[in-house]
């Protein structure tokens, strides 16, 4: 997993690449919790280049959503380019749970 963070005032864009699975999910969750602890409550999760996403990875993403909502914020998501990964998000209906956006610039401005 590769995680690239870009901060735009009070919005964090987390660009994720590679595998988001049971092995890497705790690291992702810990890093995002760190931002919430710093007072950040708006996130854009860019999954464009995610190559593999399992249920533990999905759980880490939902955890970010729930925690940000608890703080009065929210999460917007850019879907993976890989069709197979998109299908898993649809199978589990997580595409309905997150607000799906096309690009991070518009997503940042929309908060």
């Amino acid at each position, binding site marked *: 997993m590769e995680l690239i963070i870009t901060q735009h005032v009070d919005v964090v864009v987390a660009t994720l690449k590679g*595998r988001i699975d049971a092995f890497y999910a705790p690291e992702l969750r810990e890093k995002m919790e760190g931002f919430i602890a710093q007072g950040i409550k708006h996130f854009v999760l860019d999954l464009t280049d995610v190559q*593999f996403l399992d*249920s533990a990875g999905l759980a880490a993403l*939902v955890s970010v959503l729930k925690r940000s909502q608890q703080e009065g914020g929210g999460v917007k998501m850019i879907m993976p380019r890989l069709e197979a990964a998109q299908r898993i998000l649809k*199978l589990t*209906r997580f595409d309905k749970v997150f607000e799906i956006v096309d690009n991070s610039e518009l997503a940042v401005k929309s908060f």
Partner: protein
Amino acid sequence: MTSKSHQRSTNTIRLELPATLQYLSILGACLNDILGQVRGLGEQEVVSYNVQLAVQELCTNIVRHAYEEAKPEERIYITITLYVHPRRLSVELLDNGKFFDESLVQEPDLEDSQIHGYGLFIIKSLMDEVTYTRQGQHNCWYLMKNLEEKS
């Protein structure tokens, strides 16, 4: 192993992984390479991804629940077999962990996002056959995916 292992096959590969999460990518790469050798497979990328995901979900469950994430010295024994007639891939997984009680597993509520409980749902959704048996001190899982030709 079950008798299903002894049917005529083109390739059988056996792996023995430590019961930790860090080597799961090796298993995924292995499945991807095997399925990459299947000629004329419809939606190859999606099928390969789905099989990798189902098997990884099961291995994660074994590490977390059967071995309770506390026994990295234990092993998961995996047999991957590619059959010719009818064309299909089977993956058998054997572990020495705790008994799996399916009656304790709740179906995820897809209308109300939750953090846990999607593993078995994903496995059953993506594979054509999923069976579990307890044999002595072993948990035995059999997953099968039909490999249809491109239409």
